[in-house]
């Protein structure tokens, strides 16, 4: 199983520590391998350092890609976080 979708970073402060923490916590709930891709870089979505080092400011487009038996659910769950702006304003 392979699933992927592109999301935009909506919150003002970008994918900083707290959103990254949420992404990693969410990704870790799934068995699939999950990666985030931005431009030509990719990072393990279960590594907070990796996610942070993608350096995604507001407005950047991020591909969430998952491989495994629960890939679709993983992408959907992480996509949800992106779309809610990680629960942060603006």
């Amino acid at each position, binding site marked *: 199983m392979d699933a992927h979708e592109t999301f935009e970073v909506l919150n*003002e402060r970008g994918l900083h*520590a707290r959103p990254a923490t949420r992404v990693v*916590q969410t990704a870790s709930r799934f068995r699939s391998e999950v990666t985030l891709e931005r431009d030509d870089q990719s990072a393990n979505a279960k*590594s907070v350092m*990796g996610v*942070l*080092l993608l350096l995604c400011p507001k407005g950047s487009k991020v591909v969430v890609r998952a491989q495994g038996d629960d890939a679709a659910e993983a992408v959907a769950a992480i996509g949800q976080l992106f779309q809610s702006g990680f629960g942060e304003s*603006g």
Partner: protein
Amino acid sequence: MSGGSNREIHGIAASPGVAVGVALVLDRRRVSIPRRHIGEEDVDREIQRLRDAVVAARVQLRELRERVSPEAGEHTLILDAHLLMLDDALLLEQAESAIRVDRVNAEWGLRRTVENIKVLFDRSGVDYFRERRSDIDFVGERVLREMMGGSSPIAPLREVEGPVILVAHELSPADTAALAHNDVLAFVTDVGSATSHTAIMARALSIPAVVGAADATREIATGDLVVVNGLRGVVTVTPDAAAAQRATDRGDRYQAFVRSLRSNHADPAFTRCGQRVGLRANIELPAEAAVAIDHGADGIGLYRTEFLYIDRSQPPTEEEQYEVFRRIVEMMAPRRVTLRTFDLGGDKFSTAFRIPKELNPALGVRAVRLALREPEVFRAQLRAMLRAAVWGEVRVMVPMVSTLTELRAARAQLDLARAELRAQGEAFGDVPFGIMVETPSAVILADHLAREADFFSIGTNDLMQYAFAIDRGNEHVAHLARALDPVILRCISQVARAAEAAKIDCSICGAMAGELLAVPILLGLGVLELSVEPTAVPEIKASIARIDLASARALADEALGLGTADEVEALVRARFGGLLADLLAAGDVNGDDAEALILAAPSPGGVSGVGGGGGGGGAHSRMSLRIFSSACSWSCRMRSRDRLYLSPISFSVSSSSWSRPKRQRMIRASIGESVSRSRRSSSDHAVFATCSKGDGVTSSWRKSM
């Protein structure tokens, strides 16, 4: 404790008061690590050491996380982030590979990896990511500490019962969370400035703090009895019984002094003859607004908006600024808030602007000149200010206006900003539009400017620099520029008269307004609005209450006719020194020394109020003067967050030799030099002087420069 060591550590007096208590040391200092190359046979062992240390660090962090109460939501999240970083494959893999490939010991491998990751974050040029460096550092240091066996729990709060004096390298939000349920008597930190988080928190809590006390975490052990003197910026480790008692007494006297000052807390400032004086606070961080209210300020006389622009690659958005301004305006309402548009350039840099490299930045693209070169950025700020005015009384003030053309150009931008808001259907309020008078040209043209500006605020710090043509940062000349010089008094007088003729307000928001000896002259010159550092409000208010305008005017008239700053100062001391003596000594009238010193004080170049108790009874008592200064303004925040204090210079001088002119000159020269050295790094600072007589401290005082 009778056999105490009385070791003293000097730092910056960040929050006044004196506390005696048991130390609790939060050891957050970076450990120095062994670095060695290892043989192949050691690789597995080193990797195992690393893994074990990670496990141990995780246990500790989890424990801390559980101890932090759930209501500290923000802080738990930070700790969660730390836990994730600790478990991060990237960190561990890189560290392990450093050990395996580069053949270095585990500590070195980890430190290297942490440094590499920090570089990556640094390169991002994005503030939020750069901030993460400290998180990674924190996590790395935890693990290193475990490996080196010298593990101190992150916050061993349970080891010490009852109220404590908190000693730390620096205090982070995570520490603050851990401390939520502890009684803290005082703070001491290795690093920091008077505007650092710790200092602001301490002032808000009204507990003493000494920051920038280098090596405090090394010198002090948990359980030690310590004295924190937040008036002098000195920490005494394991004081003997007598010293502890003296400190307790000093603390009590200070408390009594504060209570007596606070009795007028809720009242506006009035002179003895009943003239209302506007007394407001200068602030830089939104959090200081609460401190200003707490100290009885009538409002904010100067809000420096520059900090919003510092350390970032893009200027803040209108929305972001609006939120900050609104918060302050709402909090202060119905009190008035004067917002100053960004004063960048000069010695204050922001990466958000590309300011050309200038040979002479103080005379270059700064303040309003920069604003007019970047009109879009300027208007975004003006719009945010206009919108904030919906929530309370707001005035907008532009720094460094030196010509009428500039004033008109700035006002045109304000009109444009209003039109833009109207077009967008955004609500906004009415704001008076005023200028800072801080260049000689603005003083000379004050009559014209007064007809077109809605108010004046005199910035004495810059005015001094430009009026004397003296670089505040140049140690060889800085002491030559003094606020009490007739040059500055005449400038102020001229500006105040122009304002009066045009019926506009005129205030002073420079450091001079917070100087006790300047207050009577300023009132006498007709300046009835002062804006000072928040914590100085009570004492300035108390000083105002002792002054009657008739004698202040007589004093000012006479001072305007004098020729030198020394003459002016001697005159003020003669007329008002007695009235203000206890304030000048921060409530310490115990022992006549303080008063005698201050009243008798000759003025060494740039420093006033330092003198010896010459003549009289104890002609042979040896006195020592110790002068150090603390920098608290924001150029230091920008240039470096490091401690900014001078090593104390000490002299031993007998009162008989003090009277010898040559000896005096020598001492004055050293003091002047040390003061001007601190000016290199900061524009506002105070000099703390203490005078001790064999058996311990008998007096101390503080003077803002």
